[in-house]
């Protein structure tokens, strides 16, 4: 990633941006987020197939925003997240520069978010075969089997909220799960509290999730919670023709069509 390191140095030397968000070598074989504020630190930047963390989760953080304009190393899912965040007025051209990384691992610098959007729209959001198979398997089960599957999967969850922390779309200053007047979600991490928390999470991400799997990758127990949001993605396609994050901001769940079709309302 010679290009990326060189450009990071330039951007910081000219003070065009105050911080560049990228990846560095972490402990073991893991990578972790790096916040480069001094040109000499740019040499720590790396990029390879292990860099799957969605860095867009940091652009809404107060501590990062305070530093001034930022640049972000953005793979395709990160770019999608950024467009979604821009459509929700969380980032804009004056506070964010996108250093894109194409699926071929080439660096591509975008002048503005309109260019990022155009790039992102070349690719459809596709669920991979392994997860498609899993969704199929679940849909073929009876209701009772699905209930058992999810109770078994979700019961070990101890509500560490790593999934929420890893998700770029979970930027609310007060999450519904933390609200206690009224107590929407039971606090304890028992079957009920866990089930309702994960249903709530999936519903709040409906029409916004861009299927980056950051939640699943962050889960210390590898609970397949991304299947819930994937299911919502499939349904959005089936019922409403699907969605792409877009600067126009016509979000799936904040718009409607008078002729939306359903078959269950009497």
């Amino acid at each position: 990633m010679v290009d990326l390191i060189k450009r990071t140095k330039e951007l910081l030397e000219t003070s065009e941006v105050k911080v560049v968000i990228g990846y560095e070598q972490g402990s073991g074989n893991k990578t972790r987020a790096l916040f480069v504020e001094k040109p000499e630190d740019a040499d720590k930047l790396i990029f390879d197939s292990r860099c799957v963390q969605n860095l867009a989760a940091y652009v809404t953080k107060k501590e990062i925003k305070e530093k001034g304009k930022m640049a972000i190393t953005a793979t395709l899912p990160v770019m999608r997240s950024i467009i979604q965040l821009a459509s929700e007025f969380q980032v804009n051209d004056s506070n964010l520069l996108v250093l894109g990384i194409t699926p071929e691992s080439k660096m591509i610098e975008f002048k503005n978010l309109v260019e990022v959007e155009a790039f992102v729209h070349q690719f459809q959001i596709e669920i991979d075969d392994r997860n498609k198979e899993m969704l199929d398997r679940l849909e073929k089960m009876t209701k009772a089997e699905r209930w058992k599957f999810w109770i078994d999967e979700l019961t070990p969850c101890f509500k560490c909220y790593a999934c929420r922390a890893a998700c770029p779309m979970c930027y609310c200053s007060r999450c519904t799960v933390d609200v206690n007047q009224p107590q929407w979600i039971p606090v304890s991490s028992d079957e009920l509290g866990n089930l309702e928390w994960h249903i709530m999470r999936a519903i709040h991400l409906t029409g916004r999730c861009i299927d980056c799997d950051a939640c699943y990758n962050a889960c210390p127990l590898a609970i397949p919670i991304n299947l819930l949001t994937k299911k919502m993605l499939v349904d959005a396609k089936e019922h409403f023709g699907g969605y792409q994050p877009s600067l126009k901001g016509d979000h799936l769940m904040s718009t409607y069509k008078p002729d939306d079709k359903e078959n269950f309302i009497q």
Partner: protein
Amino acid sequence: MAEFEPKIVAFVCNWCTYAGADLTGTSRIKYASNVRIIRFPCTGRIDYMLLLKAFDEGADGIIVSGCHPNDCHYTSGNFHARRRWIMFRSLCDFTGIDTDRIKFSWVSAAEGAKWADIVNATVASIRELGPYTDYKKIAKYPEKEVTHG
């Protein structure tokens, strides 16, 4: 053992279904008394979490009802609600929650008879399904103190 009496919670909008249910009463149409009606300003206000809370508190069935499409007092509340119901119902089904226990309907202020039919049909189908033991089990019902109903 006494016959199972289903507990049904109905979430209805103020302008159509609530008025419709009122008409059922003023028309002296008799219908099942298992339903507890909760009035909302609009179907657009009926948060999906409220439906889960109803099951938490021991409901065996739920009715969600409001104005017919194009009849919303606030123009578009029911259109937004419909989109949400489509996605929420599907997610519930995917997690194994029994969606046969959640009935959605449009009942206008003039459809007093339809309201009676909806309630009667729901009570009959829930009576057949029996108590919602799966959800009650995880909600630790009935050990939890329930002071109403």
